[in-house]
């Protein structure tokens, strides 16, 4: 074991006036406060932490601008999305929980735009209830997971009760920008995912690899180190497990550099999980860029 001690030096200097820190400063004299301050500007992670957990949609063209000088394959894929009506992207914060936050937003917006929101909310509620026995089977403390899950159930019940927080897209986004609520929902979804993988170990175990070493992991190790802790990215196993556990279709548009050739009927690669992923089945639709997930939708509402 080892530590990167040079990244975390000591508190030796006197409190008081901020001093000038430059290349001549002895790193071992930095205080905790000075380190935090220095890291604020440098650290990409900190930059991410100031972004909203999830935000109201931006036009797809905004995403395209980021790639204007980039790969032509990616631009082609973005143009295909635009031509086919996928015109808005709901950004999630890139903190390792973006899949679960994107899933939640897409899940709730799907209920909002159903022809019968109350019915759809009831179905969602029932799906979640059906996922609970697996959690108990895995030995998760009932009182504990119910506390996390409650944040999600409150929002789903709100559709049936005509609550304000779920009556508009804006209301949903605002509800999910509350850190405590959003984090609780992330934990709840992680536990649902974990308990599905644990109770379907035979199905998943051949595919459970460490994302850093690519060595196989036992189901227990995988769930403990890659699913349950916050900040750990979701990969295919997690995505499939959550879709199956909640009985919902998920389609993910892969915005990567892979070439699809001229014979593909769409210029972007959609990877599908869970049940009915055809358009009438109204699957959740996400946009994947290596290492990050957002939600992509067709703007179905008249502009307000």
């Amino acid at each position: 074991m080892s530590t990167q001690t040079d990244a975390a030096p000591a508190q030796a200097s006197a409190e008081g006036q901020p001093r000038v820190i430059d290349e001549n400063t002895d790193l071992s004299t930095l205080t905790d406060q000075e380190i935090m301050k220095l890291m604020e500007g440098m650290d990409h992670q900190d930059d991410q932490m100031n972004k909203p957990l999830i935000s109201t949609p931006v036009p797809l063209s905004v995403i395209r601008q980021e790639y204007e000088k980039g790969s032509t394959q990616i631009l082609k894929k973005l143009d295909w999305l635009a031509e086919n009506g996928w015109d808005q992207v709901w950004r999630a914060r890139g903190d390792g929980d973006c899949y679960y936050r994107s899933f939640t937003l897409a899940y709730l917006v799907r209920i909002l735009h159903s022809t019968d929101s109350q019915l759809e909310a009831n179905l969602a509620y029932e799906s979640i209830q059906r996922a609970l026995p697996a959690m108990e089977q895995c030995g998760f403390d009932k009182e504990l997971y119910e506390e996390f899950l409650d944040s999600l159930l409150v929002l789903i019940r709100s559709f049936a009760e005509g609550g304000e927080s779920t009556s508009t897209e804006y209301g949903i986004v605002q509800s999910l920008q509350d850190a405590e609520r959003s984090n609780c929902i992330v934990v709840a979804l992680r536990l649902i995912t974990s308990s599905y993988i644990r109770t379907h170990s035979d199905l998943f175990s051949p595919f459970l690899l460490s994302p850093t070493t690519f060595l196989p992991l036992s189901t227990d190790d995988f769930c403990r180190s890659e699913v349950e802790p916050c900040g750990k990215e979701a990969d295919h196993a997690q995505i499939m497990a959550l879709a199956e556990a909640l009985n919902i279709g998920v389609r993910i548009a892969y915005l990567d550099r892979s070439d699809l050739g001229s014979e593909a009927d769409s210029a972007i690669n959609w990877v599908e999980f869970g049940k009915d992923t055809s358009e009438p089945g109204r699957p959740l639709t996400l946009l994947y860029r290596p290492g990050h997930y957002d939600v992509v939708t067709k703007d179905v509402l008249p502009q307000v």
Partner: protein
Amino acid sequence: MSGLSTKRLMKELADIQSKGTPEGIILLSADSMEEWVFLISVLGEETIYKGETFALRMKFGNRYPIDVPEVTFLANEQYQPPLHPHVYSNGHICASILGNEWSPVLNAVAICITMQSMLASNKKKERPEGNDRYVRTAPSNPKLTRWHYDDDTV
């Protein structure tokens, strides 16, 4: 403290008071909802820590249990951190469960159990490599250290 963290800590405290703690683990103080201290000893005859007791301090931030608490072994006149290849002489601990493998389903007692078994499986009393250098330059909060977990089984 936020509603979630207070509620969770109240529940943990109530559980400890009604069901007790596992053998070898004692809640020494929980004067506030911000800082608890547990006493930890390793059971059995086989252990190299026979007869020793260590004090484990946990500081809970307002994002607990989403965020891991700050956990250190006390190093003062009364208590010394265990001699262990993952425990620095200032009490800082290198364990993945206290870093990127923390999960909100874990709790204070689960941390104590992990620390107890980390000590129980150790065969050699020694400080981590580079202890003196680390201790000289370590931040007071071990969560600011970027730990690199090589082998949790030691």
